[in-house]
């Protein structure tokens, strides 16, 4: 008797739900520690954070002003520092838009289509995270260096990539390209294609669907990816140092800080410049936290 069977199934499902709730409560009881253990754990983690994160960061700001405010301003306004800022802004300015375009395209095809080799593509996107930045730098040295045919071709046509601005830009793009894609893929996967289909039935073109439905739904995740990408692009050192070869012209902020620090005579100057990056990190952290709250509230009010 069909209908009766269905009722039976429903009843057992609600039983299971009740059982599950009771189970969760039991697990919570069993995994909740005593007040002392909790306090000790919180104290330990807080102490660790203060010792290894907040204290060093405070030191940077403290050291930056060790030679006085005038020295601080002077360190920031040298030609080399300004050049490094420019270089960093260039690399970041190129990396972010490319990242956004690549991230959206990759997330679109991974999140909204089914195709053969999708798993492989997802793993490939993570390559820059998996390999050391130094290796990434060396990879491009090999690619554009005199030992490769591409390098020889470039040399013949007098195109200089290695040890100049284009190389910095290229490695920055390389080490940052997973950021936006990784943030948007889960959003697209979770949302599915229902809204796009609805838009299509209502007569929207592919372009209209993208701008009016898909992109607005992914905007917080996109911004989050951009923030992370920005932080990484500005702070990139390992790959850049390999392809830049320590010349003033190709120094980015991190490379410039390193140069200053290595030269011993500069006193507080490296710390002064470092405050720039540290400030950016703090801003990143704040924006990132705000975005996380936004994304979470957007998720919890999902249609």
């Amino acid at each position, binding site marked *: *008797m*069909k*209908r*009766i069977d269905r009722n039976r199934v429903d009843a057992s499902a609600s039983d299971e739900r009740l059982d599950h709730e009771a189970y969760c409560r039991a697990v919570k009881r069993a995994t909740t520690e005593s007040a002392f253990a909790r306090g000790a754990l919180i104290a330990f983690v807080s102490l660790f954070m203060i010792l290894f994160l907040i204290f060093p960061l405070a030191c940077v700001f403290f050291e930056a002003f060790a030679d006085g405010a005038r020295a601080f301003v002077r360190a920031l306004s040298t030609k080399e520092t300004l050049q490094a800022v420019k270089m960093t802004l260039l690399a970041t300015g190129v990396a972010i838009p490319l990242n956004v375009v690549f991230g959206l395209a990759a997330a679109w095809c991974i999140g909204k289509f089914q195709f053969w080799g999708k798993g492989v593509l997802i793993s490939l996107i993570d390559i820059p995270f998996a390999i050391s930045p130094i290796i990434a730098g060396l990879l491009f040295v090999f690619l554009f260096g005199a030992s490769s045919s591409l390098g020889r071709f470039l040399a013949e046509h007098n195109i200089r990539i290695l040890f100049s601005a284009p190389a910095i830009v290229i490695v920055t793009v390389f080490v940052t390209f997973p950021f936006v894609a990784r943030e948007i893929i889960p959003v697209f996967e979770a949302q599915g294609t*229902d*809204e796009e*289909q*609805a*838009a*299509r*039935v*209502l*007569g*929207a*073109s592919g372009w*209209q669907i993208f701008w*009016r*439905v898909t992109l*607005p*739904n992914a905007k917080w995740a996109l911004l989050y990816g951009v923030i992370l990408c920005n932080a990484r692009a500005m702070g990139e050192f390992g790959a850049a140092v390999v392809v830049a070869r320590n010349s003033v012209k190709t120094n980015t902020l991190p490379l410039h800080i390193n140069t200053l620090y290595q030269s011993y005579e500069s006193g507080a100057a490296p710390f002064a410049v470092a405050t720039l990056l540290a400030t950016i990190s703090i801003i990143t952290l704040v924006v990132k936290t705000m975005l996380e709250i936004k994304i979470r509230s957007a998720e919890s*009010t*999902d*249609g």
Partner: protein
Amino acid sequence: MGIEVRNITKTFGGFKALDDVSLQVKAGELVALLGPSGSGKTTLLRIIAGLETPDSESGSVFFRGVRVDSQKVGERGMGFVFQHYALFRHMTVFDNIAFGMTVKPRRLRPSKTQIREKVQALLHMIQLDNYADRYPSQLSGGQRQRVALARALAVEPQALLLDEPFGALDAKVRVELRSWLRRLHDEIHLTSVFVTHDQDEALELADRVAVMNQGKIEQVGTPDEVFHSPKTPFVMNFLGQVNQFRGRMERGRVWIGRYEGAATNDEINGDANGSNPATIFIRPHDFEISTEPRKGRLSFPATVVRVRSAGNVVHVEMVTEAGETLFAETSHQERAALSLENGGRFFLTPRNLRVFTDDVEENDEVDKPQRAASF
């Protein structure tokens, strides 16, 4: 003619979701595609809409006499309401409803004031006048479903397709929305097709019901036709509660175990005069319960194992001599008159039954005229 589907087949990988399906929907008609999950009903609806393409060598979809196979989804002039509403979550109710109008090419696009008026009218129609600035997440399920409907109607479609329109709603809202939708359909007479797995919904709402099973349409007919004259065992089984017995058909007489009786020709699907094993279906409310067997009719004994009397009818669970469980229904008065209690032995005489001889089930002959049947 509204919508016509001709010989559509659709395979996903090796799975045949639709197998040579044909269906006609008259202009202004409300048709339900009813079937269990996996029966192909949603696939058929999506093919009509153009969201899915049928197998290349199979048939076509016609809409208002025009073959629409090569037309894109947005060009067919059909509205589609998705099962989970698929409202644009970042847009207000107003923007959701206006969307279809605002994406039109500039020369066809209504002016801002026209759009505003149209949306206001639709909001009034769905009884959500003051909800224009809300977001979908701030609405209840029933309200979302109405917004989805208004959004589909805003572009003035020539047909409306609804995929499990009430599937995600709780029982009470579902019933309310169902009668609201029926009233709406009676007002605007838009050719409509909706998919459901809920027989009550299909029988209450639709002008005609197409019962689907395993990629085929088993029967198309008015709710009365499919409920009272099911053409296949599946339809009998799927629509309403039913008791099923294995027995025989022997020269016009129905046999269940050692009991037998006459059956009318209407009740028999298949060879009435041969000698064949058969499946006999009897609905619980079609049993007459008595203390003595009825002479000259199919009347067999069974023992009461459980009586459930909370409700407007009394549900009785019984066991036959052969140990089969069956369900019967009777009135409260009848129950009192019979003093029907657990352990009592009674005779059951079907007022109506339905016989499908085994040659029917095996033979495809019966299926074919049904699928080709047109209305």
